């Protein structure tokens, strides 16, 4: 790593550390219904929202009631987005006169945005009207993120409460996530992006003549507003196909840095909210530290391998080390204005969190550089993770860690005073199982079926990595594409749709079940005999369980993909 790369990583990480307690304390207040400085503006809107929707936001819902409310809202919005796409030629704000989106692609996109995956099988600027982008997609950027935050808050409440029937109220949690957290922050971020040159208008494509005299269409649209929530809500669905690599989405290293901050902000803040709401701030920091360890390891590895570049190129005379006016290393698929450091860090951040925004093609990374995003997603995206999803994802691993290691202290395992028993273990295993089954199952099918293989642009282990990445990205609700795989085919649209759908909802229903069952339990007072969920030991244990139970399952698959590709590359083989 160069000095600048180290410095940037250090500054970035320091800012995340600084933001975490601030956001955590704020979120705690918001979800406890306590006063905040935004109340004078937002309270009336909140009350109006409840009245218009005719919901009771006061009632304490059981986990089943809570989950049903959440599923109903998500199902309704899923169908709505499908309908918008199929009917966009009849709807307003379609200056480019795009036709209806195909059925399989609409299904894929509807699921994709509802599940906070934002996998894009389509190319936004040549498919979606401004109406679909704003009312359909941007709306889901908010709703799916708010759903994630709401689930995380409900889970935390389950841990914090004692002998309680309910885990809170979905309407309250969801509405407050949008009004108090997502809207204000994305508003500020959007203003910043506009000031740095991100476009924000309702115009049709602008046709210009290039210097060579050719015709070029320059796409326009309400980009900045969508960009902010794309990062903050870890959605990742870009206005343009090139996502954060496109200058209108991400013009400068400054906006790039801001985008990375937005991606981790809420995921980090929620660890602090976990600590504060359960009365053990140290526990929040222990979880934060576990996430940080994995993040830093990934960021360093990705940068090092990208900077190291490809030995085959070097034999042909390409510079590996940075020089005056040259970056060295592997610049394929990267934006010149970002270079290796910003691209590798962005790739790590976007796959740690289930964001999926990209500013470089992961497909073009060196095999081991590309393994970092792949491994990040394989952890279940618990490294800060998608907003809310990261927290409730790591919650499953916390439950397992507490169970396995908790036995070793000679007591029935307990997590912050709540006994972890067979019911919780069953549900936790279920939610881990579903991801493994989806990713490996679909990848195996795609690797054998002509429908899966025909979309590949690359042979050998790299092609395999592309398939694996697609299903990991879908099931993990990441949404970033390794690219190189033509995913807009009926096979991939349908299977990835299922992958995303089950990967989101079948994973989180068991987790909400755990929250409900923990809420009902009584709290055992902490003593010297209690398994400590704070401190470095717990942090290391948690990382160990995530790596061994979560990611090691994918070791055989990785070794047939990026690992063997790396070894072949070192041996000088080309395909």
């Amino acid at each position, binding site marked *: 790593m160069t000095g600048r790369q180290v410095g940037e990583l250090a500054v970035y990480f320091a800012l995340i550390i600084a933001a975490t307690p601030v956001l955590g304390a704020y979120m705690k207040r918001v979800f406890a219904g306590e006063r905040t400085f935004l109340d004078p503006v937002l309270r009336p809107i909140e009350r109006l929202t409840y009245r218009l929707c005719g919901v009771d936001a006061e009632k304490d819902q059981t986990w089943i009631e809570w989950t049903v409310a959440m599923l109903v809202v998500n199902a309704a919005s899923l169908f709505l987005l499908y309908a918008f796409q199929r009917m966009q030629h009849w709807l307003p704000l379609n200056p480019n006169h795009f036709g209806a989106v195909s059925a399989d692609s609409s299904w894929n996109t509807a699921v994709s945005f509802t599940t906070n995956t934002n996998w894009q099988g389509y190319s936004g600027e040549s498919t979606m009207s401004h109406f679909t982008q704003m009312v359909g997609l941007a709306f889901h950027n908010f709703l799916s993120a708010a759903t994630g935050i709401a689930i995380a808050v409900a889970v935390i409440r389950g841990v914090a409460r004692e002998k309680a029937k309910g885990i809170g109220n979905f309407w309250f949690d969801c509405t407050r996530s949008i009004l108090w957290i997502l809207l204000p922050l994305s508003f500020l971020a959007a203003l910043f992006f506009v000031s740095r040159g991100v476009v924000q208008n309702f115009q049709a494509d602008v046709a210009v003549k290039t210097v060579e005299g050719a015709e070029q269409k320059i796409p326009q649209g309400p980009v900045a507003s969508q960009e902010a929530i794309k990062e903050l809500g870890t959605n990742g669905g870009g206005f343009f196909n090139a996502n954060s690599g496109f200058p209108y989405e991400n013009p400068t290293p400054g906006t790039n840095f801001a985008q990375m901050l937005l991606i981790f902000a809420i995921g980090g803040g929620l660890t602090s909210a976990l600590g504060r709401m359960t009365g053990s701030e140290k526990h929040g920091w222990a979880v934060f530290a576990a996430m940080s360890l994995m993040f830093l390891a990934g960021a360093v590895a990705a940068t090092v391998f990208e900077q190291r570049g490809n030995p085959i190129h070097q034999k042909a005379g390409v510079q590996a080390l940075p020089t005056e006016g040259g970056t060295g290393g592997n610049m394929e698929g990267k934006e010149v204005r970002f270079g290796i450091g910003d691209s590798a860090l962005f790739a790590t951040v976007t796959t740690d969190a289930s964001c999926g925004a990209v500013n470089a093609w992961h497909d073009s990374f060196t095999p081991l550089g590309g393994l970092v995003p792949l491994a990040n997603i394989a952890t279940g995206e618990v490294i800060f993770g998608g907003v809310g999803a990261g927290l409730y994802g790591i919650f499953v691993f916390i439950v397992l860690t507490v169970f396995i290691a908790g036995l*070793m202290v000679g007591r029935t395992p307990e997590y912050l005073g709540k006994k972890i028993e067979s019911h919780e273990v069953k549900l936790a*295993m279920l939610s881990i199982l579903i991801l493994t089954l989806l990713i490996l199952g679909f990848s195996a099918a795609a*690797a054998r079926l002509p429908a899966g293989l025909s979309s590949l642009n690359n042979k050998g282990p790299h092609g395999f990595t592309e398939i694996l990445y697609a299903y990991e990205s879908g099931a993990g609700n990441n949404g970033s594409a390794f690219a190189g795989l033509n995913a807009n085919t009926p096979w991939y649209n349908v299977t990835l749709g299922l992958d995303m759908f089950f990967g989101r909802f079948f994973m989180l229903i068991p987790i909400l079940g755990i929250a409900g069952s923990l809420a009902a339990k009584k709290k055992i007072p902490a*003593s010297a005999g209690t398994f400590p969920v704070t401190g470095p*030991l717990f942090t290391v244990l948690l990382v160990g369980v995530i790596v061994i139970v979560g990611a090691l399952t994918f070791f055989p698959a990785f070794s047939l993909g990026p690992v*063997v590709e790396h070894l072949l590359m070192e*041996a000088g083989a080309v395909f």
Partner: protein
Amino acid sequence: MAQAQRRRLFDPAIVRPAVADSFRKLDPRLQARNPVMFVVLAGAFLVTVLLVRDVVRGREVLFNLQIALWLWFTLLFANFAEAMAEGRGKAQAAALKRGRTETVARRLTKRGEESVPATALRKGDRVVVEAGDAIPGDGTVVEGIASVDESAITGESAPVIRESGGDRSAVTGGTRVLSDRIVVEITSNPGETFLDRMIALVEGATRQKTPNEIALSILLAGLTIIFLIATVTLRPFAIYAGGSASTPVLIALLVCLIPTTIGGLLSAIGIAGMDRVLQHNVLAMSGRAVEAAGDVNVLLLDKTGTITLGNRQATDFFHAPGVLPGDLAEAAQLSSLADETPEGRSIVVLAKEKFALRARRVEGMNFIPFSATTRMSGVDYNGRKIRKGAGDSVTAWVRSLGGDIDATVTDLLNRISAEGATPLLVSDGPRVMGVVALRDIVKAGMRDRFDRLRAMGIRTIMITGDNPLTASAIAREAGVDDFLAQATPEQKLALIRKEQEGGNLVAMTGDGTNDAPALAQADVGVAMNTGTQAAREAGNMVDLDSNPTKLIEVVEIGKQLLMTRGALTTFSIANDVAKYFAILPAMFAATYPVLNALNVMHLANPRSAILSAVIFNALIIIALVPLALRGVKYRPLGAARILARNLWIYGVGGILVPFIGIKLIDWIVVALHLA
């Protein structure tokens, strides 16, 4: 049972039947109870079928034959562990059965007595038992007193007294009356007696999975499914890569990855835990009770007999002004020579220790015994009237003789009371000699034990009938965390409820009938075997030695049981890292020779690598049988330190050990030309 405590781990008498049992337990219906081992069984079966096919087709089978053999060995080793654990219980059950002889009972009827076989007795029958007879069934003494030999169940040869009424009325079927005659009311039907239940329990016949064991089984089953998915999908991946993955190799990988170590040893750990409790002469009615003991965070201990020695003892002489210390001791000693109470005897002992005063002949002494009205005792000897007793009584006595009591002595009396001790005022005629302090003596080593318990996060609460002042002084001295003074059975029950309400798990011991509700309410209730039938029914454990401090050991065994499970689970999962590095490069050696870079152990060839991993996986089970049966080493430390320790040994060790083990096995496999 006394012999059982000294039984060697690999006693041939247990090992031989266990080996036979290992084969019997291959029955798929038995294996289906354990999902991990069932997958191994299915795998072994499949590899064997493929082996037969290959033999028929005349292919080279040496490699697959070895895989198949080692998979079967994996199963046998796991079965052996369970059979060993059961065998130890069975050996003890056999010893108990010998004590269960067919006896003839003398049943009382309206017209007199009739002789019936013991098996014909029903609840409510009354039987007569005389010296030399065996008691025909469990019951309560309703008439008479007798000394009873209970060695058949307790292993303790000293006879115990059983009498009607009070807390010593319960008798157990199979024990023998040594003297006198008692009438016993039978309280349990044949087949449900204590001895029957004890035999069933140690044989493991009624063993059910404990809640924690179920949770762990679910975790292991979940991991098994995850690895099944990872292995099954590996074949399509391999075919995509232009290679192949043979079924036996895939099964070998699967069996290596699924947690067979803990899966194979899980039931042995549970049975061995029950067995360890039994070796401490405590009979746990269920595995759940032993497990709950590990979770206990509040211990209720009776003061008398548990924390303190049974009686108060003289500890100090405080002489009055103008009295020589030796004179006080002499007066106190004289007044106590004929006093047969433990307090009196302790005064004589103290006088001898401190002033070398020897006991004298009692002739010519007129001993005045203690009475409730005078509240003092003493002796008239050589014209001296020596008295000792409660402060106010002796003061009144001295004043009646024309003497008076010094203010410093009054202060002394008050001070000793405030310390929780009992002051005895001693006078010789009208002269106040001084004060003898009687104190409860805390048993040696109790403070240390309570410190250990505190380190484990367990609070001890002392239960006593004493007044709060005395109670708090003893509590301080013994180092307990809290006390309940002037305790009644109702208060005891209320205290347990309150602690449970606050999320605590409570353990207690008890023997009396009035303890029964509290014993039933407590999460772990250890009834003394000498206690009443009601107490024994209410508790979920019975201490055959009737030693109340045993509770602490039971708690430690419970903790050890859970720790053993956790440690072996961690070890089992950590093992997977090395197995991946052994098998994966070997599996794809033909397709991607470059993957040999992952062969960090430098295993000789693909076949030896796979074989070594499978052999290691099987052998580690047998290597860990002693650990499963004995339990991991237990130390009374705080959770954080225990965790750190076990994590180093079983977590880090679990990652490293297989790297070394597989490499060693690889050398041997190659040296023997097995691959």
